[in-house]
C-alpha cells in the first residue's frame, strides 16, 4: 500500500534525507529551530543535525539572504526558510541583484546552489501583508528557478530537485497546501525542473491551476463534469523553467485556455502563460483565453470580502462553463460538501 504523508511531512522528509546524504545541505531561517519548527517542516532536524546545520536567525532577511548566497559561493547548499512570502520583499536586493545574477555577471565562474522556501498565507484574516503570492517577480528575473508544488509527492520531489540544483531556486509553498495528504515514496526521488503534469483529462477546456489554485481547479473539474464539460487540468509544478509545451498541446486540443493563479493577474504568471500559448498557437488554431487570480485589490481580512477576493472551485467552474457554453448560459454549481475548501482555523 502507498505510504501517505502530509505535505509538511513530505518537506521535512526531503530535507532530512538530503541532509543525511549531503553534509553541505543546511537549513536556516527565522524560527526553524523553535518548538513549532515552521509547521513541522523542520521538526527533528535540529536534534538530528545540530545547531550548526539547523539554526534560527535574527530578524534580518536582507543579510541572511546575502549570507545564504555567501554560503552557496563557498559550496554549501543552504535552504533558507521564510514563514511568509511577503517577507521576501526585504530580501529582493539579494535575490534579484545578487543571487539571480552572480553566475552570469561573473562569466560562469560561480554558481549559487541555494533554496529559498517561502509560504503563501490564506484566510483567518492574514490580510494585506501575509497572503501574497509574489512569485511572478521571480519568474520575471532571469537566473532564478521557481517551483510551486501542490501535492505532497511534488513537495518532496521538487525540494530534492531544488536542493540538488546548482542554481538559486525559489520554492513556493502555500499554507493551505500544507494540510494536503497524499502518497509519497520513502525513497529519494526528484521532480525535476521544467515538467508539468496533466492532473485530469478533458477535451473542452484547459485549466492551468497554479499553487493552491491547482486544488480548486481539480474541484472545478468535478463540478464541470456534472454538466458534461471535460476540463483538462494541468499543474505546471515548476514556473521557471515553465513547461509551456504541455499546456500548448492541451490547448491545441481543447481550444480554450483558462489560467487560474494564486496571485494577481497583472504581469503575473497567468499573463505569461496566456501570452506564450497565444504566441504558440496563433495562426494554428483560434483559441479562447481567460485568466483568474486574486481580485485586483489588497487582500481584505473580513471573511465575506476575502471569499470574493479568491477564486474557488465554483467560481472557476462557472467561468469555465461560460467559456465553453457562452456567457449567456449562466451557471453556478451548488456547493458540494465533498468539494469544499479546507477551512483554515487560526490563530495563524
Amino acid at each position, binding site marked *: 500500500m502507498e505510504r501517505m504523508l502530509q505535505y509538511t511531512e513530505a518537506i521535512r522528509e526531503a530535507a532530512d534525507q538530503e541532509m543525511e546524504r549531503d553534509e553541505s545541505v543546511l537549513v536556516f531561517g527565522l*524560527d526553524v529551530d523553535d518548538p513549532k519548527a515552521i509547521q513541522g517542516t523542520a521538526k527533528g532536524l535540529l536534534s538530528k543535525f545540530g545547531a550548526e546545520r539547523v539554526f534560527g536567525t535574527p*530578524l*534580518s532577511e536582507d543579510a541572511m539572504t546575502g549570507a545564504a548566497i555567501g554560503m552557496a559561493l563557498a559550496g554549501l547548499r543552504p535552504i533558507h526558510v521564510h514563514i511568509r512570502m511577503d517577507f521576501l520583499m526585504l530580501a529582493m536586493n539579494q535575490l534579484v541583484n545578487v543571487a539571480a545574477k552572480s553566475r552570469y555577471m561573473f562569466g560562469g565562474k560561480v554558481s549559487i546552489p541555494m533554496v529559498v522556501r517561502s509560504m503563501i498565507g490564506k*484566510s483567518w*484574516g492574514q490580510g494585506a501583508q*501575509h497572503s501574497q503570492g509574489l512569485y511572478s517577480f521571480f519568474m520575471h528575473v532571469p537566473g532564478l528557478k521557481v517551483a510551486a508544488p501542490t501535492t505532497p509527492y511534488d513537495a518532496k520531489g521538487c525540494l530534492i530537485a531544488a536542493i540538488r540544483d546548482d542554481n538559486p531556486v525559489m520554492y513556493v509553498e502555500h499554507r493551505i497546501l500544507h494540510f494536503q495528504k497524499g502518497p509519497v515514496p520513502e525513497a529519494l526521488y526528484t521532480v525535476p525542473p521544467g515538467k508539468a503534469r496533466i492532473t485530469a483529462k478533458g477535451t473542452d477546456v484547459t485549466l492551468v491551476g497554479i499553487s493552491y489554485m491547482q486544488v480548486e481547479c481539480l474541484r472545478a473539474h468535478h463540478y464541470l463534469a456534472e454538466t458534461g464539460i471535460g476540463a483538462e487540468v494541468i499543474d505546471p509544478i515548476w514556473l521557471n523553467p515553465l513547461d509551456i509545451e504541455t499546456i500548448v498541446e492541451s490547448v491545441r486540443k481543447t481550444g480554450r485556455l483558462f489560467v487560474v493563479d494564486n496571485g494577481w493577474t497583472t504581469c503575473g504568471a497567468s499573463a505569461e502563460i496566456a501570452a506564450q500559448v497565444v504566441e504558440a498557437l496563433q495562426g494554428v488554431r483560434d483559441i479562447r483565453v481567460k485568466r483568474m487570480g486574486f481580485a485586483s485589490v489588497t487582500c481584505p*481580512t473580513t471573511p465575506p470580502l476575502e471569499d470574493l477576493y479568491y477564486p474557488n472551485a465554483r467560481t472557476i467552474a462557472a467561468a469555465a462553463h461560460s467559456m465553453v457554453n457562452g456567457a449567456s448560459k449562466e451557471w453556478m454549481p451548488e456547493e458540494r460538501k465533498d468539494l469544499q475548501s479546507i477551512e483554515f482555523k*487560526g*490563530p*495563524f
Partner: protein
Amino acid sequence: MYEKFYRSLYRIRRVEERIAEVYPTDKIKSPVHLSIGQEAVSVGVCEALRPDDVVFGTYRSHALFLAKGGNLKAMIAELYGKATGAARGKGGSMHLIDLEAGVLGTSAVVGTTIPNAVGYAYAIKYRRENRLVVSFLGDGGTDEGVFQESLNFAALKKLPIIFICENNGYAIHTHQRLRHPALNICERARVVGMPAERIEDNDTIRIFERVKNAVDLIANGAIGPHFLECMTYRWKEHVGPNEDYQLGYRSKDEAEPWIRNDQVIKIGALLGEKEKRAIEDAVDAEIADAFACADADPFPEESELFTDVFK
C-alpha cells in the same frame, strides 16, 4: 492620575481577556497578538503624550490603540470584520488605525512602521508643529536593518520622535540572547548619538515619568529623538488566546516575577475600593457594549471589495 492609569490598564486587560474568551467561538477570524502583561508600557507612554501626538505600532497593538484613545467599538468591530471597524473590516487586528486619536497605523511586517514614524516626525519638524511621534517596536524589530537606518536618520535630522522598544525578551519563541551577541539595545541607539535609557521593571509610573521627561525636552526645543527600552513580559502565547509554557521555550518560573508585578493589580491597589469598583463597572459596561455592537454590526457590502485601492 492613578485613576486614569488604572482605568486604562484595567480596560486594556479586560478587553483582551474578553477577546481571549470570545476567540474559541470563531467570531474573531483574525490573528490576535495579545499584550496581556505588557499594558504598562502603552499606558505609561500614552498618558505622557498630548492628544495631537501620534503613535505608530506593531501587529501587537491592542494596548497601544486603546491607551492612545483609539475607539474601542471600532477596534472590536475590526476584529469581527465588520463594516463599522476601524479599517472597515479590511485590516483586522494587525492593521489598527484611529486618526482622531493619533493612532497612525500598525503593521504585520516587523519593523515597517519605524521609518514611517520617522517620516511623520520629519513632517512635524518641517511644519514647525509642537507635537511629536512615538514609534513602538518590539525587541525583534531591532534586528532589522531598517531599525538602524531609521534611528540614524532621526538623529541626523534631530527629529521630534521617541522610540519605545517594548522588550518582552522574545521574538515569537526566540530569545534576544539567540539573536544579539549582547543584550544592549540601548547602545544601538546611543551609537547614533541618541539619548537612551532602559526601564527594567515594567512600572507604569516610572515609564510615564521617563516619557514625560522626554516629551518635555522635545517640546522645550531641546529637540532630537529619544530612545526608551521598556523591559516587559508577554504572558500569553505569541499569537492567539492561550498560554504556551508547555512549548518549552520558556518556563513559567521566568514569568512569575512579572506576573507578581501585575500592573493592573498594583496600580489598582493605589485606589480606594469604591473608586476602583466604579471604574471597573463603567469599563465592563463599555466593553460589553462594544462586543455586542460588533456582533450586531453588518459586514461590509460586496462592493467594498473594490473600494479604496486608490483615492
